[in-house]
């Protein structure tokens, strides 16, 4: 008989046609995170973070004008560029399906693939009910779709990513 707790985790995988450094930056820069964090119907309107081990993060997710915004927050546990990001994650207030104050752990892993592609795997552990696993799974899937859309809008193709990065470096040097 399997331990039911072992089943209460989720993992979502996406591949992006962009180099690992670009995807890593999108996961570790608040300017980028505010554009893709949160699901389509509850996108982030702010993302504040002190991105270093032990540093705190907090995002405000809006859910339409009539519903109060939802705050999600936590702190960073591990930052191993450009591959691994681990942080705690909890919903503030009484919004969480598992009850208030449930702290979960999110792991993001980036893997460089051939042809400047990157695989992103997001896992979350510590959820306590099948309902919340389903809800968070949809949430991350929506986030990852939004990340893809944001990357597309920002960089028309991976060749242009290289060009724009060179431009930034030159700009900083002068």
């Amino acid at each position, binding site marked *: 008989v399997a331990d039911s707790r072992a089943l209460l985790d989720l*993992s979502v995988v996406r591949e992006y046609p962009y180099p690992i450094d670009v995807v890593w930056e999108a996961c570790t820069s608040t300017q980028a995170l505010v554009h893709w964090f949160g699901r389509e119907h509850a996108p982030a309107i702010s993302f504040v973070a002190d991105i270093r081990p032990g540093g705190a993060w907090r995002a405000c997710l809006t859910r339409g004008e009539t519903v109060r915004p939802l705050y999600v927050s936590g702190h960073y546990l591990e930052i191993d560029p450009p*591959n691994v990001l681990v942080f705690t994650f909890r919903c503030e207030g009484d919004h969480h399906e598992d009850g208030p104050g449930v702290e979960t752990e999110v792991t993001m892993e980036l893997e460089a693939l051939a042809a400047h592609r990157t695989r992103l795997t997001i896992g979350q552990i510590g959820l306590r009910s099948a309902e919340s696993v389903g809800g968070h799974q949809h949430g991350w899937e929506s986030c990852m779709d939004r990340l893809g859309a944001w990357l597309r809008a920002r960089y028309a193709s991976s060749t242009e990513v290289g060009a724009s990065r060179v431009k930034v470096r030159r700009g900083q040097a002068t």
Partner: protein
Amino acid sequence: MDNLSTTFYALADPTRRAILARLSRGETTLSELARPFDMTVPAVAKHVRVLEEAGLVRRGLRGPTRPIRLQPRALRGAHQWMERYREFWDTSLDRLGAYLAHTAERQRGR
């Protein structure tokens, strides 16, 4: 599950035993722990969580990196449980030894 079942459940997996073996050499990060395994970091995180729930490992509370460390005291219950059977076999093997010595002596005397 009772404590003993939780401990043995956590130990009943080769990946989790390998994680414990690595941690017995010193604390480390999840990222580092995952390196030798042919699985994703989130999958290793899940194994670490099972060990954490059994009290066998924990993330350090102090310091910015909060490394994962072994909590060997949590193995005490399992060790005590096994110890009883070790005593049983020790006693049985002592008696077997005495029986064999006695039989050998009788055969020589024949």
